[in-house]
């Protein structure tokens, strides 16, 4: 048998790593802009596409899919080739993977600021982009599995199992959560409604964190930490237990998003128990990573790569202890909707994903350009500035989370809320938002220092070229187990079998979660007073979606005394049956809006959208002045209603044929009420009646007011006295 000569594809790795740096800086910059808008809400006054609600999904998508996504592909493609002693299966697929992914990112960067969004968190992109994501992801999967099949190493190293689980699970999650009926090329409605949509979305949301931000990075940890420390992983046995139990349990832990909800109490508790059990494999992995450094702690002092790794793995440990704790009901009652969640995700994002990515970049790029790092000193500066940034980011978020949640729940002896005005609980935590912005700035400065350092390194180095290697081809062995071969070693040399088994393992948990989800639909009791939205309200709801109001306002009142007193009757499943998509939200930067309808006059809403600080002094809500002038686009109103009918919303044929007339009538009524305000009428009458003039009734604000005045009103006041839990 002869040695085979082949070349590792380094150029594709280089492309992904450079893209990681560029998109990382972009994503962090948008994050910093958003953090600053908590302090100066009208920083981007009047610029629609730079408004908070539209930029927030841009930030999350940029850091998750552009920064971390590119790092994931780069790291996987580098390690996969070397662990398998084979060039990537197809150069064309590699290129489709790279350029396709960048195109998707650019499409996201254009559509999200334009308000083109499905509004489902971390899955905001509209359906054509969703399809592109599926195609590129499958290209990545075929490329990976093809490489595995052409390998020259018998056994698959543990990192590769994590990569396989990542590919399979993300594909399943993405497809099921993105199912939607299109209205046009850039607008669709989720096939699920209300409760069901929420359940599918959080099954996705929870597991996207697991299988996009966690498993691939654990694979990278199992490869790059031993390489950087120059010693094998602490315990290979532990890594096997880590892998199988992690992918098994993670999918089950979804029910912790159903607290104060769905399942019977003891079943909920078991959902929590699974989340708590998740600590074991997570910490098993963390310990395995950290103990790999045993005996080389002296190197950690001098080597920035190892420093970044230590903080990354510690961050992983912190986030994975915190997550299960937050899934305990009593803690969840405080953490949910508060800044605590923001602190939690940034420990994961900044420390675990961010620092592991930085470590990988500092280790890999000098090797690719065949030189040493330009400045170890600068890398150390980056490490300290970044670490300080994480601390200054996370601690204020914990403080503000606890503070605000406690203020929300505080009662006077007479049973009224101490902080009945939501705004009081916001102004209290502004200093924390200042500190968070400073922390974020430091983190970004660190990343810029890295960018400079790596740029200089690349300039000093050589051109990145494909690397020559030689290895013996793999001898054919029976596909059956050979004499004396144990099961796992056999499985490790049967990649397709391993993939199928991993898929089964993740599907078990997925199916148990999804079956009750699908059955919910037939089990939601109809509330006779709940009717479909009027055409104008439907359009108003789409403006609410476009402007990303859901980023800061929930529509989900939990059965706590503090929430019922503040907002009104708690949410019922039957209220949301026509909500494609659901808009429950996950964060209350402003108050819950579920029972907003009828609370204020139409003119209050108009003034509030035009200048929030005029109606609510000290508010940190940005102004939405364009809504007062933009003409409402009713071109697709009827089409929207037809799509809703396909989704099961009972609009009659008459409803649809009279749709535009109904819309116009309701708009005229609202416009007339708005003009009763003399001050506004005066300003309106002074507007120049030129060709661009749009009558008030035809403006977007009218539709939005129609929707906001409808919110929560279907549930009649004749409700039984509330049972609440505190």
């Amino acid at each position: 048998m002869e040695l085979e000569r082949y070349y590792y594809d380094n150029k594709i790795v280089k492309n992904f790593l450079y893209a990681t740096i560029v998109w990382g800086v972009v994503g962090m910059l948008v994050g910093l802009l958003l953090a600053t808008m908590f302090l100066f809400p009208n920083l981007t006054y009047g610029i629609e596409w730079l408004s908070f609600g539209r930029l927030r999904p841009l930030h999350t998508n940029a850091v998750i899919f552009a920064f971390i996504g590119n790092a994931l592909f780069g790291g996987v493609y580098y390690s996969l080739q070397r662990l398998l002693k084979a060039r990537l299966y197809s150069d064309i697929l590699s290129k489709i993977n790279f350029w396709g992914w960048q195109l998707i990112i650019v499409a996201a960067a254009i559509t999200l600021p334009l308000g083109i969004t499905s509004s489902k968190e971390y899955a905001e992109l509209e359906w054509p982009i969703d399809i592109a994501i599926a195609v590129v992801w499958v290209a990545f999967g075929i490329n990976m599995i093809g490489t595995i099949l052409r390998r020259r190493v018998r056994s698959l190293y543990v990192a590769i199992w994590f990569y396989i689980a990542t590919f399979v699970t993300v594909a399943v999650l993405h497809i099921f959560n993105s199912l939607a009926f299109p209205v046009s090329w850039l607008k669709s409605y989720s096939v699920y409604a209300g409760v069901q949509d929420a359940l599918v979305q959080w099954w996705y949301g929870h597991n996207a964190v697991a299988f996009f931000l966690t498993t691939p990075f654990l694979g990278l940890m199992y490869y790059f930490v031993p390489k950087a420390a120059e010693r094998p992983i602490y315990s290979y046995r532990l890594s096997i237990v880590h892998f199988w139990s992690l992918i098994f349990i993670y999918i089950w832990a979804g029910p912790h998003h159903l607290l104060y909800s769905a399942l019977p109490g003891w079943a909920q508790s078991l959902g929590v128990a699974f989340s708590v059990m998740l600590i074991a494999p997570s910490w098993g992995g963390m310990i395995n990573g950290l103990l790999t450094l045993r005996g080389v702690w002296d190197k950690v002092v001098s080597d920035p790569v190892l420093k970044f790794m230590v903080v990354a793995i510690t961050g992983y440990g912190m986030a994975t202890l915190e997550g299960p704790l937050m899934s305990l009901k009593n803690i969840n009652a405080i953490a949910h909707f508060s800044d605590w969640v923001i602190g939690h995700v940034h420990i994961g994002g900044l420390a675990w994903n961010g620092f592991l990515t930085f470590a990988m970049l500092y280790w890999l790029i000098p090797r690719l350009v065949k030189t040493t790092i330009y400045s170890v000193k600068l890398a150390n500066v980056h490490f300290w500035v970044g670490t300080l940034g994480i601390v200054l980011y996370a601690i204020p978020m914990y403080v503000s989370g606890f503070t605000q949640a406690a203020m929300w729940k505080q009662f006077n002896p007479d049973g009224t809320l101490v902080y009945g005005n939501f705004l009081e609980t916001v102004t209290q935590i502004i200093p924390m938002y200042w500190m968070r912005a400073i922390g974020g700035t430091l983190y970004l400065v660190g990343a810029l220092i890295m960018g400079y350092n790596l740029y200089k390194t690349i300039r000093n180095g050589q051109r990145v070229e494909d690397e020559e290697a030689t290895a013996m081809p793999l001898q054919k062995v029976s596909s059956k187990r050979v004499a004396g071969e144990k099961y796992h070693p056999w499985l490790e040399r049967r990649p397709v079998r391993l993939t199928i088994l991993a898929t089964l393992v993740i599907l078990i948990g997925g199916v148990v979660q999804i079956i009750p989800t699908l059955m919910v639909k037939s089990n939601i009791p109809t509330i006779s007073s709940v009717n479909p939205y009027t055409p104008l309200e439907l359009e108003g709801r789409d403006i609410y979606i476009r402007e990303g109001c859901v980023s800061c306002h929930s529509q989900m009142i939990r059965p706590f005394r503090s929430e019922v007193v503040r907002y009104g009757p708690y949410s019922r499943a039957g209220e949301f049956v026509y909500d494609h998509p659901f808009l429950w939200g996950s964060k209350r930067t402003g108050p819950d809006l579920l029972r907003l309808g009828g609370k204020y006059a139409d003119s209050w809403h108009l003034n509030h959208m035009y200048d929030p600080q005029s109606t609510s002094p000290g508010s940190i809500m940005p102004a939405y002045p364009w809504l007062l002038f933009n003409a409402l686009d009713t071109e697709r109103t009827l089409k929207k209603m037809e799509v809703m009918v396909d989704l099961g919303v009972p609009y009659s044929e008459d409803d649809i044929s009279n749709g535009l007339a109904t819309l116009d009538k309701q708009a005229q009524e609202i416009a007339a009420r708005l003009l009763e305000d003399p001050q506004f009428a005066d300003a309106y009458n002074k507007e120049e009646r030129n060709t661009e003039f749009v009558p008030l009734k035809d403006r977007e604000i009218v539709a939005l007011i129609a929707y906001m005045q409808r919110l929560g009103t279907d549930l009649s006041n004749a409700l039984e006295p509330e049972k609440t839990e505190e």
Partner: protein
Amino acid sequence: MLQHTKEHLATIEGVGVYPIFSLLLFTGFFIGLVWWVLQFKKSNIKKLKNIPFDD
């Protein structure tokens, strides 16, 4: 969150089987996994954990 769906999932016939089944399944899975891993030969483990250094 999701308070309101409680009774609806509860109406699924035999929904209580799900969590019990889940717990037994995982416990069995985990015990099997640990037993399995302990069967590995030391020499084999050594070979496997050194794969990243053989390039």
